[in-house]
Every structure is written in C-alpha cells, then in structure tokens.
C-alpha cells in the first residue's frame, strides 16, 4: 500500500499508470464516501425528526448502505415498453459522468488531484452544466408525463442556478487572479475567502442546494406532486447511478470545491507545512475533510429544515435577487481590485466591507419581497385605481 501511495504522491512513474491509479483512487474513495453519506444523511435527518434512523443492519445500522447497494445492484432493471431505448439506457451515465469529471480537477491535497488544471474552476463549472442533459434525456425517454415534467423543471432550475454559481466563484477567482484551484487555495494563507466575500459564499451555497435538487429547491423531484422527478421509471442499478451516485458524489464534490475556494482548503489556518513532517498530506486531507464535512452537514441540516419553494418563487429568487447581486459583486470586485492593488490590507478591508454591505442589501431586498402583498392583490388594486 505504501509503495502505491508513494507512486501516486510524486515518485516518477509511467504517466498512464499514474493517471490510472489516481483515477482508481478517486473512484474507490467516491463510492465509499457516497455510501457513508447516505448513511450519515439518514441518521442525521432521523435525529432531526427525533427518530433513530437505520438501526437494524449491523451495529447502529452501519451496514445499511451496503445492504442497499447489494439490493439495488441485484434488482431487476425495468424499462417501460414505450421508452426510447438508447436515451433511456444512456441517461444515467450522462448525468453521472459530468459529476465524476468535476472530481478529477479537485486538488484534495496541495498539488494532488487527478489532474492539476490551470483552468480548473472553469473546467468544473463547464462540465457540471452537462448534467442537465442527462435529466432531460431521462425524462423524455421514460415516456411518462411526470418524468418529463420533472425533467423540464430540473432543466429550468439547473440552468438558472448555474449562473449565480458561476458568478460566485468568479468573484473569488478575481481576488486570486487565477482559475487554478491550487492557486486560489494557496492565496488564502491568512484570510479565507469566506471572510472577504461572504455574499458570494451565500450565493454559492444557495446555488449548490439548487444544483443538487436539495430540499428547499427540490421542485424537480417533488415527491408529493411529481412522484420522483426525471427518474420515476428507473429501477435497480440505473436508479442508483442516476440518483444516489449523482446526488451524493455531487454533494461531496461541491462541498470540497466550496471548502477549497471559500475556506482555504488545506492552506488556511496553519499553512500547508505542519509539524507532521512526512505526513503533511494526512494533515492536509484532515483539514479538507473537516471543512467539507462541516459543509455537507450544513447542507443536510438546511435540507432537513425548509419546505419546498414554488416554481415562480424559485425562478424569481434566482433571476431577481441572486443574479443581480452576483453581478454587482463581480463589478465591485473589479473596481476594488483595479484601484487598490498596492496595499493588501486596505484591499481586504474594502472587499469585506463592500461584500458585507451587499449582503445586508440583499437581505433587505429579500425582506421587502417577502413583505409584498400577493400579486393578485397588487394587480387588483392597480385595476381598481385605473377604473376609479
């Protein structure tokens, strides 16, 4: 094991073998993480609802995910008679592969990813946008009106929330002056970006919730009205790919991305080098693990708390609030970074002040929007005023 690890950690090796080993490592870690996350979410949400969660399979139900995996893999793979064969069979892969591809550009330790890309952030944003096509394929090919409705809703939602997400990470990459995730993380040696840019952080978390179709934004899945969204007709292994793997691998990837971009990943608070000597990589992994676990638990906590939004509320929130404020943040960042490039401290203070002010302004706008009387009343009042 040690030999293999050291091979992956920088000893010269055949390029293809190296890439293959890194890929294998990511695949194995991803699968284990997904199974652990499913168990953790069931336990955590159970406790929030004052239940125990899975308890029977293994001690405290720890083997529940393995039992579920065995069940899903051995289940019959049902396909509706009227389904479009190619689209139906391929849709799970089209949804899953982009999510997996985002994992390839993430530096889990300093300089250690499957590939260290100069345009890492751009690559991640570009690749994760493809998932929508998989949902649409699944919904269309199922030949089921609920699946199609869910697919169209998820297409609208994912495409809309892609934009604030891009603006949020863009605002941060402007500060780092780079799209390389290693550079962005290394730049946060003293102050993490979440302090400099609280508003983009909020936007990113909100957009992540929407991208993953989690609770306040689970309109595409909507069990109560759409049965199960684009994957109503799926079962067995295809369902586990399209649902479990995509959702939870996406959650994992996005939380690691957020930890790297906003919480300084393995850099903040103590710098990359520690007193662990040769085992620095373990220390870095631990930091990333702690930060991403915190984010994952926060996402689970949020999605266990809030009820579902309406479609128009969802769209209005994205296009009327998140997107304008994201653009404003990018604009202000540009001005600040252009004219305050001589003093680091002054720059940081101004960045924090402007982003904080924008956050307060956004909260105020949301407050006003929630205090508005319903649209019917406003239209009725306007019509009455005109006829009088």
């Amino acid at each position, binding site marked *: 094991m040690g030999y293999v690890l050291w091979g992956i950690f920088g000893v010269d090796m055949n390029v293809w073998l190296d890439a293959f080993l890194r890929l294998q490592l990511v695949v194995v870690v991803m699968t284990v993480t997904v199974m652990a996350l499913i168990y953790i979410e069931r336990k*955590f949400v*159970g*406790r*929030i*609802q*004052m*239940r*125990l969660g899975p*308890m029977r399979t293994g001690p405290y139900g720890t083997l529940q995910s393995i039992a579920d995996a065995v069940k899903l893999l051995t289940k019959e793979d049902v396909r509706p008679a009227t389904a479009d064969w190619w689209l139906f069979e391929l849709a799970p892969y089209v949804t899953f592969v982009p999510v997996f591809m985002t994992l390839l550009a993430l530096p889990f330790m300093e300089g250690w990813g499957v590939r260290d890309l100069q345009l890492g952030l751009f690559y991640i944003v570009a690749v994760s946008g493809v998932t929508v096509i998989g949902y649409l394929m699944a919904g269309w090919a199922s030949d089921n009106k609920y699946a199609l409705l869910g697919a169209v809703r998820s297409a609208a939602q994912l495409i809309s929330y892609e934009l604030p997400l891009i603006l949020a990470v863009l605002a941060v990459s402007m500060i780092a002056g780079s799209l390389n995730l290693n550079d962005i993380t290394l730049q946060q040696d003293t102050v993490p970006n979440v302090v400099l840019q609280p508003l983009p952080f909020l936007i990113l978390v909100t957009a992540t919730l929407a991208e993953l179709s989690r609770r306040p934004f689970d309109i595409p899945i909507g069990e109560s009205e759409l049965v199960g969204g684009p994957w109503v007709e799926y079962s067995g292994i295809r369902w586990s790919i399209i649902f479990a793997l995509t959702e939870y691998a996406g959650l994992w990837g996005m939380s690691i991305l957020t930890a790297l971009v906003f919480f300084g990943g393995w850099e903040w608070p103590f710098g990359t080098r520690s007193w662990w000597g040769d085992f620095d990589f373990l220390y870095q992994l631990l930091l990333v693990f702690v930060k991403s676990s915190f984010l994952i638990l926060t996402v689970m*906590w*949020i999605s*266990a*708390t*809030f009820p579902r939004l309406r479609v128009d509320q969802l769209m209005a929130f994205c296009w009327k609030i998140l997107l304008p404020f994201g653009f404003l943040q990018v604009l202000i960042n540009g001005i600040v970074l252009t004219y305050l490039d001589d003093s680091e401290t002054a720059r940081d203070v101004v960045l924090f002040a402007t982003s904080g002010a924008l956050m307060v302004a956004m*909260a105020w706008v*949301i*407050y006003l929007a*929630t205090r508005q009387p319903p649209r019917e009343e406003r239209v009725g009042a306007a019509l009455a005023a005109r006829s009088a």
Partner: protein
Amino acid sequence: MIGVLRSLGVTMATMLRKPVTIQYPTEHRKVPERDRAFPILLYDFEVDEPFCTGCHACERACPVECMTVTMKDNPKHAEGTSKRRKIIDEFYIDYARCMRCNICVEVCNFDAIAMNNTWAGHELSVLDRKDLVVDLDQLLALSKSKQIRPWVPS
C-alpha cells in the same frame, strides 16, 4: 429572514433531543394496566381451579358471539375442597372474531375473566385463522404462569 434562522435553530434543537423511537420487536413500550387486548380466564390458586363456573353470562352477553362455554359438576365440590358446585368444562374464544369490547368482563359474576393487558395479547399473528380459536388451557396459561396483572373493573 429571521424566521429562516429561527427554523434552523428549531431543527437543531430537536436534533439534540432524545429520539422517541422504541425498537419495537426487541423492545416493548410498557402497556398500561387498563390496556385491552383479548379476554383471558383467571386461575384461583387457593383451590387450584379456574374462577369460572361456566355460567354462560359472558357467552350470552357477547355481541359478536365469539365464545363457546360448557359447564360440568365440580368434582372438588363433591370432595368438599371447593365451594363451586359447577365448574367450567370447555371454553373457546375466537380471537379473530372478538372485538375487545370488555362486556364479558363486566357481566362476569365471579371476576373470572379479564382483558389481557400484556404484549402477548397483542402479538397474535398466526398462519391459519383457525389457530386464533383458543381453548381453556390457552386461556388460563397466562394467569397460571402469573405473568398477568389482572385488572377487573369492580
């Protein structure tokens, strides 16, 4: 906006509370004393025979007619060890038919029948409906083994 944060606080507060789940088949909630499962017969340990004299009062009162009772002369009365002239011979209750109305307990003149207030009275799944017709031995078993805390309205 404040409500959003407050709701997050509510879920976190419930998370820190103790779960209410009881792991049912391995762990039982304590049933109350006046819990009504199905009727069973009580056993008189002083004279070593059932309290029931087979007087048919419960059988006649039963609204769903789930009981069958027969009576015989009590051999112990002839010996002089028991005050009961008559004693129960055979007693069948069809638990599939019983609706747990408690009327049999209320009409009984000898406090010989009571509602089962243990979990054994509720866990009665069988493979054949016929197995739910229980005879005298089964009706007396719980009382004989002293596992029941009989609660008879007085």
